[in-house]
């Protein structure tokens, strides 16, 4: 590591900076007239105007001096910094050096360039080297010949797919995505009821493949599933198919490039895929919720790798889900839902809203079992070509909700055990009554999907209401 002189002038420069190149003759002049130690960040031979420029290729000294701009000129007295200036400014350089007439051929001033020690990737590396990360998590040292992926699989961290190794540098960069304190506890993750700090969530977000700007969405999703009303322990432990489905609204969707259009619920978009995956890794690693352990799912569903998509607010004539649930338009939010996979609603012939809503209602009534009502909550993902039919007829979202609830009233006789030749069903006392497939508020309508295709989707859910999971909406905070 470079050692500073006790007294005199010190400059930090890099050849890659035009202002440093411009000031090279002045540095030579200072070397002759006053003496100066020049440290170069990128080229140990630069500047050749001074005898023996020092190398700071490792950037240790620059980091220690907290250099932000090159050139930086510093005056030291008795080992202490007494003055500093950066960029080229004749007046300042003359004040610091006590000399006059410096750089007569140069303009009066010229701004400097960004210091190399602050470049992305470099700063994190230096913080790790100087033990300044503030990260509290246990460090796990891998053997020199140990394969990173195998080491992570071996420790049970993976959902079955490769992970991004959570190095200190990557986790530091991830934490740049939020202004929240890394040690803030977002909640206790079941089943272990272990504390999910922002730092622990960031580690899992790194592994899931998130970019730092996704982290606020991941944090909001974790916060939402840990709300008591979501009943995360039950969602995890059930033998049913459920896993948390995350729907994203507001400006953050476009800022982080989420997909709300073609294949919105499918693969291929980094934000959609990795945010949902990060949430599941938090449950797995912090909460210790693993399949065939506390996760008792009989079949599960492919969305348990991660199930996250954005609503197509711009393409919709309806208010977004988050607004319907009480937030201001444009405010970024997540809504979590304990959902199954996806059941298609194919209707290519309905051209009026009455027919289309009947078609959707019949599909909705089949969720879980045609013999069960009220069954569970459900999300109806309305595709653009279906929404067009409602839009053309002037149906608001409220109107569609109203019609669907009405159409999902089922005669009790049909639901009795044994009725229709199916043993599944309810008690004989259902006779003469009408039962709705959904509890009030148990149906959520979201708009997403590509422009072509009359194919909406239904995401059925786990037990709902006070005895199960209630969808939770949370604002995404920076």
């Amino acid at each position, binding site marked *: 590591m470079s050692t500073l002189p006790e007294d005199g002038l010190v400059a930090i420069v890099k050849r890659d900076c035009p202002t440093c190149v411009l000031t090279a003759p002045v540095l030579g002049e200072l070397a002759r007239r006053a003496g100066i130690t020049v440290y170069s960040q990128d080229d140990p031979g630069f500047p050749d105007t001074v005898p023996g420029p020092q190398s700071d290729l490792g950037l240790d000294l620059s980091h220690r001096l907290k250099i932000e701009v090159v050139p930086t000129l510093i005056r030291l007295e008795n080992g202490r910094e007494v003055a500093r200036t950066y960029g080229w400014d004749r007046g300042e350089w003359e004040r610091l050096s006590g000399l006059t007439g410096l750089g007569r051929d140069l303009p009066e001033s010229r701004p400097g360039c960004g210091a190399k020690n602050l470049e992305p990737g470099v700063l994190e590396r230096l913080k790790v080297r100087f033990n300044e990360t503030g*990260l509290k*998590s*246990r*460090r*796990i*040292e*891998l*053997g*020199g010949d*140990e394969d*990173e992926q195998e*080491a*992570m699989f*071996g*420790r049970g*961290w993976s959902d079955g797919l490769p992970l991004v*190794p*959570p*190095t*200190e540098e990557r*986790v530091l960069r991830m934490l740049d995505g939020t202004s929240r304190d890394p040690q803030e506890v977002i909640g206790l*993750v079941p089943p*272990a009821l*272990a*504390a999910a700090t922002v730092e*622990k969530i960031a*580690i*899992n977000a790194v*592994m899931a493949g998130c970019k730092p700007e996704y982290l606020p969405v991941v944090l909001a999703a974790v916060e939402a599933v840990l709300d008591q009303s979501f009943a995360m322990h039950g969602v995890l432990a059930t033998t049913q198919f459920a896993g948390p489905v995350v729907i994203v609204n507001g400006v953050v969707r476009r800022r982080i490039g989420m997909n709300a259009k073609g294949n919105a619920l499918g693969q291929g978009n980094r934000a959609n895929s990795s945010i949902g995956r990060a949430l599941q*890794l938090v449950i797995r*690693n*912090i*909460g*210790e919720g693993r399949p065939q352990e506390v996760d008792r799912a009989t079949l599960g569903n492919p969305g348990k790798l991660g199930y996250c998509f954005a609503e197509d607010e711009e393409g919709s004539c309806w208010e977004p889900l988050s607004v319907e649930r009480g937030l201001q338009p444009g405010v970024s939010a997540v809504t979590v839902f304990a959902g199954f996979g996806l059941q298609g609603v194919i209707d290519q012939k309905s051209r009026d809203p009455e027919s289309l809503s009947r078609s959707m209602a019949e599909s909705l009534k089949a969720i879980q079992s045609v013999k069960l009502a009220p069954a569970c909550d459900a999300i109806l993902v309305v595709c653009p070509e279906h929404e067009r039919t409602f839009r053309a007829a002037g149906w608001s979202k409220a109107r569609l909700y109203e019609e669907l609830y009405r159409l999902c009233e089922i005669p009790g006789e049909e639901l009795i055990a044994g009725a229709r030749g199916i043993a599944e069903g309810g008690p004989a006392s259902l006779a003469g009554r009408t039962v709705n497939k959904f509890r009030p508020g148990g149906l959520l309508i979201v708009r997403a999907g590509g422009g072509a295709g009359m194919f909406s989707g239904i995401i059925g859910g786990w037990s709902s209401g006070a005895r199960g999971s209630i969808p939770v909406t949370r604002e995404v905070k920076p």
Partner: protein
Amino acid sequence: MTVLLDPTSERSPTVRARLPRPESLDGLVIGLLDIAKARGDVFLDRLEERLSERGLAVKRYAKPTNARPAPLPLQQQIATEVNLVIEGLSD
């Protein structure tokens, strides 16, 4: 050397624990693996006799050479057929 940050609740040690030793051999299928070292078979023959006398189920396996790890198909076969393995490391 790669250093990773622990993504877990840190309630278990960083070094992976070995599987616990069975408390009893009753009902378990025991594999005897000859790694192809000299006289390993003599040792394993005797073990097989002793285990069989106790009414325990024993299966025999052999590596083609002691100079290399067991071929993957053999590893998979052993892992799916027995509950524990005893290797003969004699020489």
